[in-house]
């Protein structure tokens, strides 16, 4: 996969994940100082579910996003395949 350009679909799906994950980062930091805000916790849980779904669809097409048992692998071992985030 080293020198094959990535399709637009890769960038679009990745950005969808980045959007949801960023919202989760923001809610997480907010909840760190507002642990009683039930509405924000519900929102956090809803976005967490959404993020898992998007990540699963991305991984089926472009391989594992997370190592150490948090993503499944095809054969051969898919984790070590390019591209890495700073290369795309």
């Amino acid at each position, binding site marked *: 996969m080293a020198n094959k350009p990535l399709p637009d679909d890769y960038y679009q799906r990745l950005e969808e994940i980045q*959007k949801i994950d960023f919202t989760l980062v923001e809610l997480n930091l907010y909840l760190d*100082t507002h642990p009683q805000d039930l509405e924000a916790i519900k929102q956090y849980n809803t976005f967490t579910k959404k993020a898992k779904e998007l990540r699963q669809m991305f991984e089926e097409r472009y391989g594992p996003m997370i190592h150490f048992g948090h993503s499944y692998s095809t054969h051969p071992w898919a984790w070590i395949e390019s591209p890495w985030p700073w290369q795309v």
Partner: protein
Amino acid sequence: MDTSFRKSFEPFISRFDPCKPIPVKYYETPPQLYLGFQPEGLEQFSPAEALKHGTLWPALYAPYSNPYRHDGK
């Protein structure tokens, strides 16, 4: 209290200053200086807008551009 995010001052200009004077100097006073402990239920950006703005909350959003350039870049 002036809660705008950009302030300015006018430093003394000597007639012996060698460089062309910048008559007005600017500095930033962004929203975290005024918000206090963030209240619950503040308005939020959509996830797409949040990523673009760098925050989920419009109340914490304070864009920056070079104050000494007037073409908006």
